[in-house]
Structure formats: structure tokens, C-alpha cells
């Protein structure tokens, strides 16, 4: 692998730490992405079937 993605993936994760909460940036990004997809699934109109 080459490029920024491999340099991001091929080293130990960077962690955010606030009080009791500790989470890697990668896991946080995945959770945020899931929340975005969930919101879009609720808000975006479903395409109507053409008759």
C-alpha cells in the first residue's frame, strides 16, 4: 500500500482521551460515519417507482 491511507493505517492508532472516555480516531470516524448514513437514510426521499 502507498499514499496517505497506508501512512494513516500502518502505525499505532492515535487516541482521544477525555476523562473516562478513550477512543481511537479511526473508531470515532467509523461511528460518526454510521450516524451520518443513518441520518441520510431517515431524511433522504426514497426514489419513486415509475409506472
Amino acid at each position, binding site marked *: 500500500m502507498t499514499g496517505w491511507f497506508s501512512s494513516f493505517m500502518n502505525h499505532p492508532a492515535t487516541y482521544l482521551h477525555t476523562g473516562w472516555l478513550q477512543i481511537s480516531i479511526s473508531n470515532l470516524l467509523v461511528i460518526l460515519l*454510521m450516524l451520518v*448514513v*443513518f441520518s441520510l*437514510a*431517515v431524511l*433522504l426521499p426514497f426514489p419513486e417507482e415509475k409506472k
Partner: protein
Amino acid sequence: MSEMWTAKLRNKWQKNLPIEKLLPDDQPAYVSSWIYVFGVLTLAALAVIIASGVVLAFEGPAWYHVSDAGKFINSLHFWSVQLFFVFMVIHLWGKFWMAAWRGNRFATWMTGAVAFVASIATAFTGYLVQTNFDSQWISFEAKDGFNSMGIGAWFNVTNLGQMLLLHVAFLPLILGAITVVHVLMVRKRGVVPPIDAEPVSLGGRS
């Protein structure tokens, strides 16, 4: 009426899950929403997981660690698991906020919850059988946790043979069976309506 168990089972099946409910060609209008897509996306990801897993099982680690095609199928197996969990969790969020256990759908909800737990166990054993340094590190971190619970003798995460058989035989069978029951329950009770919508039955006894 025949007293044979086959006849009884057939009659019960036809009464509870007639073919027009099992294989519907129409759905209520409220199903026209993206949030209703994530259940079948989870099933699609599971199909890719099973298909790629069967290839990995036939070819073995000497193939999937070394050859380009093997690395591709290995990665396909791994990333379809990631998508499987993403889709399943979004499906879970959607169904939770819809209170999808309404309308006598308790069994549908519970089989989904059990399938979620079985998926975690299957994925965990998958991480343990990668046969690389990652799986070695995970198993040696996990063994202390399982030993502290007193179950390390029966569920030994450092025993590659045990974890491999659980991952490729026992757990997929359990997960597959629960998934089939879950889908049949969805077909039997129908897709849960939004909270303010009138439920629509597709025929038969719901």
C-alpha cells in the same frame, strides 16, 4: 385430516406463513424509505462473507497470505464483515427508534438481538484465526479476560484449532439458523410500520 406430523406441520406452516407472505411481490407504502433497506443490506453482506469464507476455507492460509488473488479474497472477507456490522447496527438503530417489537413482533426483535450477539462471537473468533501477528496479539490479550471469568478452560482463545472450528463450523451454523428464523419472522409478522402508520397485512394469519 391426516394425523401424521408432516401433515400437521404443513397445515401449521400454511396457516401461519402462506406462500404470498413468504415471497411477497408488494410491500406497504411506508416501506419506501432508505431506513428499510439496511436489513437486506446486512443479508447481502452476510452472503459475501459466507461465499468468500468458503473460498478461504478451500484454499487455506498458504494461499490467502501469499498470492494476490488470496489477499484479495481475504480482504473481501474482512471488509464485508466491517460492512455487515455497519449495516446491522444502522438496521438496529432504525428498528429501535421504530420500536420494532410492536405488533406481536417480540420474537423478531429477540432473534435479531441474538443474531447480533452471535455475530460478535463469530467475528471475534475470526480475528483469532487470521494466523498472523495480529491474531496472536489479540488472543494473548483476550486470554486473561476469559480466564478471569473462569471459562478459559472451555473457551481457550490461544487454541487455534478450537477457535478455527468454532469460526468456520459451529458459529456460522448458529448464526445462519438464527438469521433464517429472523427473516421468516419478518415475513410472518410483516415489516413493522412507522409508529404513526396503520399496519398493512399481506394476507394469512399475522
